[in-house]
């Protein structure tokens, strides 16, 4: 890898990382405001215009809060858990393309090698792209198990166990729902899967793989523990689940990991099922339009998550497990069989 490519990758990392941080703090406000409107309240609107500075205030508050470590907690695990959570959450974004490839404009002040250079807004185009995201997700479960166990609190332990059992069950359905689209695209690369959806709108996996889309949306919601699957944090039963004992910046880190995971799921739904940066009109849009379309799709799905939270009650635990194992996984498995048959007889697409 040349120095130039390395430099570009570095810039991409910084930009994508900070875009996520910004989106995370934005989401905390948007979620509270939108939820409030759904419940005929106003939500936080005092800090700055429209409450726009609320995330800043929250951040400062969390910074200055006292760090509390419960007595009898396992120090090592207690410290490590938020770190594992955040590392896993942020690693997944390494293989995701955040928009179509585009040529840089040529300006006089730019060095020669940058002018008109083709840039793909993706940090690393791994051959095993989706598999990598899946593996990193799998490691993320440990943050929750560790946090629940290390805090030496019954609620935390129960929350940790519930959470990991839930992630474990739904991860299977989630992985199986991907198999169909991988077969259709013939590649694990997220970029290839997006390109396979180019053309008219019915080429989108939303239509070609509708069962997989439904399974992924549900399993993804469960994976990031959003309502109606937020049993790990069911406050009426478990105080706050696995992060009951966390305060200050560690709490902020755990929250950040959860939101970043949610954003990743939304981005993946947009890329894998909604055609990514393709408009579905049968012709290739200019990169900027494609990028805006991609952002709009991600925004719509994030809004959908908030909407769900404002609408649905929580599942009961046994219902949750039944639903995962007895409904979602069979649907995903049948979808794989049918898709495999169609691909074998008709070829890819």
């Amino acid at each position, binding site marked *: 890898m040349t120095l130039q490519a390395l430099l570009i990758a570095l810039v991409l990392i910084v930009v994508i990382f900070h875009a996520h941080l910004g989106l995370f703090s934005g989401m905390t406000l948007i979620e509270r405001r939108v939820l409030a409107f759904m419940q005929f309240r106003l939500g936080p609107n005092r800090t700055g215009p429209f409450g726009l500075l609320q995330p800043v205030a929250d951040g400062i508050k969390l910074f200055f809060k006292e760090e509390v470590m419960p007595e009898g907690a396992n120090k090592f695990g207690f410290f490590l858990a938020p770190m594992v959570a955040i590392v896993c959450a942020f690693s997944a974004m390494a293989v995701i393309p955040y928009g179509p490839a585009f040529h840089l404009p040529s300006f006089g002040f730019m060095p020669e090698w940058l002018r008109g250079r083709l840039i793909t807004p993706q940090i690393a185009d791994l*051959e095993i792209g989706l*598999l990598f995201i*899946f*593996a990193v997700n799998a*490691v993320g*479960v*440990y943050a929750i198990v*560790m946090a629940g*166990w290390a805090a030496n609190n019954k609620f935390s332990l129960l929350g940790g166990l519930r959470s990991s059992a839930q992630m*474990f069950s739904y991860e299977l359905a989630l992985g199986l729902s991907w198999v169909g689209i991988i077969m259709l695209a013939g590649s694990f690369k997220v970029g290839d899967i997006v390109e396979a959806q180019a053309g008219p709108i019915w080429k989108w996996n939303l239509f070609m793989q509708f069962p997989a889309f439904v399974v992924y949306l549900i399993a993804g919601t469960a994976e990031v523990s959003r309502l109606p699957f937020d049993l790990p944090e069911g406050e009426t039963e478990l105080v706050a689940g696995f992060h009951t004992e966390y305060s200050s910046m560690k709490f902020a880190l755990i929250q950040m990991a959860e939101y970043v995971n949610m954003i990743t799921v939304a981005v993946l739904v947009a890329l894998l099922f909604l055609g990514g940066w393709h408009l579905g009109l049968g012709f290739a849009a200019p990169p900027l339009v494609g990028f805006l379309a991609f952002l709009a799709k991600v925004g719509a799905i994030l809004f959908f998550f908030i909407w769900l939270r404002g609408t649905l009650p929580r599942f009961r635990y046994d219902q949750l497990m039944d639903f995962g194992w007895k409904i979602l996984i069979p649907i995903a498995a049948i979808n794989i069989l049918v898709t495999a048959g169609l691909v074998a007889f008709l070829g890819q697409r």
Partner: protein
Amino acid sequence: MHFTASDGVFLAFAAITVGSAVVVTLARSLIYSAFALLFTFFGVAGLYLLLGADFIAASQLLIYVGGILVLLLFGVMLTHKLYDLDLKSEVTQFAPAAIVAAGLFVVLAVLGFRTTWKIGPGRAPSATTDEIGHLFMGQYLLPFEAASVLLLVALIGAAMIVRRKKEA
């Protein structure tokens, strides 16, 4: 010998693997062993990656870290007897274990030095996923299918064992 960057990465991953494996065997509490095993698996996945086996590395993380070890931790956390167990090795266990370990080490070392390893010119690792898929569905179809049937049998067997007896 010239010390390259990949040597450094190898040493780092090897240190993670071996170091955490030592913790796995020596830890007094079973839960520490289980958590240390996480880092062992992680180190091994890193070694796979270094050897250009990206698919196996991801599968290693997915299956061993994401599946098997979580189940193991579940078992430990939910079983009170295991959770509070204070593990102590006695001298009578220590001696045979040392002998077996030393013997295995000698065998492996001799084998390692005697084998003439295939050393090719260094090249960028190519993608393996495609090839693995073709080999599984072609040349190695029978062993692959046999393994899957075996796993299915194990799955059904496990489900049969834990199934509640019907109350008459």
